[in-house]
């Protein structure tokens, strides 16, 4: 396979397609304590992230709903898998880590918990799609910080 072909299969690897087709924790969370929208209007990616944070500052439950390209949906699904059960502080750290990794020139080291997110690495070869991958994470940040406006990565 040519390098370019490798890149494409890197972007749309099995894990991504699986999460895009069958997103985990998909749907509205009735007893959410925090929530935020992530919208890239020019792109058409639109999602809502829900968090249920308990008294110990832990993300007891999480879910998301919305529509968008395979990258944005897969990223949101992987996000929910990653943060569920985690302390808020850890989730904040994951946000920093993953957004730096996807947008920076030097891949930041990944916490063991974030191993699955390596699946998103392929997006670095497709600059116009990075915003699709980071949208859910910015929605996470907005939700944790109780921002009023929807998050956007455009």
């Amino acid at each position: 396979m040519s390098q370019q072909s490798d890149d494409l299969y890197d972007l749309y690897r099995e894990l991504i397609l699986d999460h895009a087709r069958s997103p985990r924790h998909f749907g509205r969370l009735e007893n959410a304590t925090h929530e935020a929208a992530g919208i890239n209007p020019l792109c058409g990616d639109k999602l809502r992230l829900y968090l249920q944070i308990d008294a110990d500052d832990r993300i007891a439950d999480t879910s998301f709903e919305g529509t968008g390209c395979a990258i944005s949906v897969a990223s949101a699904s992987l996000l929910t898998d990653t943060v569920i059960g985690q302390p808020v502080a850890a989730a904040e750290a994951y946000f920093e880590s993953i957004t730096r990794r996807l947008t920076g020139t030097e891949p930041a080291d990944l916490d063991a918990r974030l191993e699955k997110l390596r699946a998103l690495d392929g997006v670095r070869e497709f600059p116009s799609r990075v915003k699709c991958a980071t949208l859910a994470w910015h929605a996470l940040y907005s939700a944790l910080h109780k921002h009023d406006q929807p998050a956007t990565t455009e």
Partner: protein
Amino acid sequence: MTQPQARTTLPVENWRKDFPILDQSVSGHPLVFLDSAASAQQPQSVIDAVARYQQEDHANVHRGVHTLSHRATDAYEGARDKIREFINASSRTEIVLTSGTTESINLVAQSFCRPRVGPGDKILITHLEHHANIVPWQMVCEQTGAELVVAPIDDDGQLELDALRALMTDDVFILAMGHVSNALGTINPVKEIVAEARQRSIPVLVDGAQGVPHMAIDVQDLDCDFYAFSGHKMFGPTGTGVLYGRESLLDAMPPYQGGGDMILEVSFDGTVYNDLPYKFEAGTPNISGVVGLGAAVDYLLSIGMDRIAVFEQQLHDYMVAALSEIDGIRLVGTARDKASVQSFLLDDIHSHDLGTILDHQGVAIRTGHHCAMPVMTRLGISGTARASVALYNNRDDIDRLVQALGKAQQIFS
């Protein structure tokens, strides 16, 4: 649109070789450019005309007494005359050179409408419009208290003509409509609609950005009051455009932008504006761009717009047939009369994913809402993939498109 009976052997290869940019590889594959509706490529003759002007003739226009200034002015005004002839306007005073369709429409909105409309007045547009033919009118409505009214479309992407007629009421100040939908390819029956509007004394502005590249335009025959289009969609340089306006209307309109060149005399006691069309051309224009636009007109006329229209229609038919055979394809924009622009969706695959995968096969299409969000909302979708065909495309390009779509299906299966 009836097809002419002549079956000319179309010298496809001759046209394609005029466009040097097509001779390159993308992601290891020969480029297949199917995004002319976003911006068309420029033939060598246009590139050469611009370069030659910059190398040999450039100076500021209209103001100088030296030789280069005369040559530059002749080149610039010569292009204006070519454009007048290209769209069969009756006078060069009706050809205002702008930076594009968007500026042309803003000019009419601010200069023709804004001074005269207020609460109780209506501005009528359609649900098919590109944002350039929506937002300037929204702005005028906000500025003046006038109301924006939108004529509906059906699920095929055609204007509902009875509904449009019913909306042409006494309080409508202007009707602004597209000639051809950039998102769906629908060709609107402009001449017929203009005739009905004129019966009701409603002036009509036509957004011709997608009209001019695909067919011969005769503004006298259409009888519209304004016709706006862009150079870069008709194989000319970016940053150029035209507003055709009926002379009596342009005459009565106050200038849109102030500055040099649009005046005859300036003093602090008063300023006298210049005659048409210069009244609407403030500042130094995009001279080299306009020279290129003139060369684009020459290029198109050397082939003939009718011949181009036939070629495009045949290739479009081939593309639609080929796409229709793909299991899981959904054609979006299925009007009876269409230009060579086709939107579509494939299975559940998001159009952006399609675009990325196609780019990886060297195939350039456009994805998203195509600056026509209301159209997408009306059809219940967030966006589409769009392939648009021009005179430099061929059946090979369509075959490659289909192949690449097959690969996308493979990846997502």
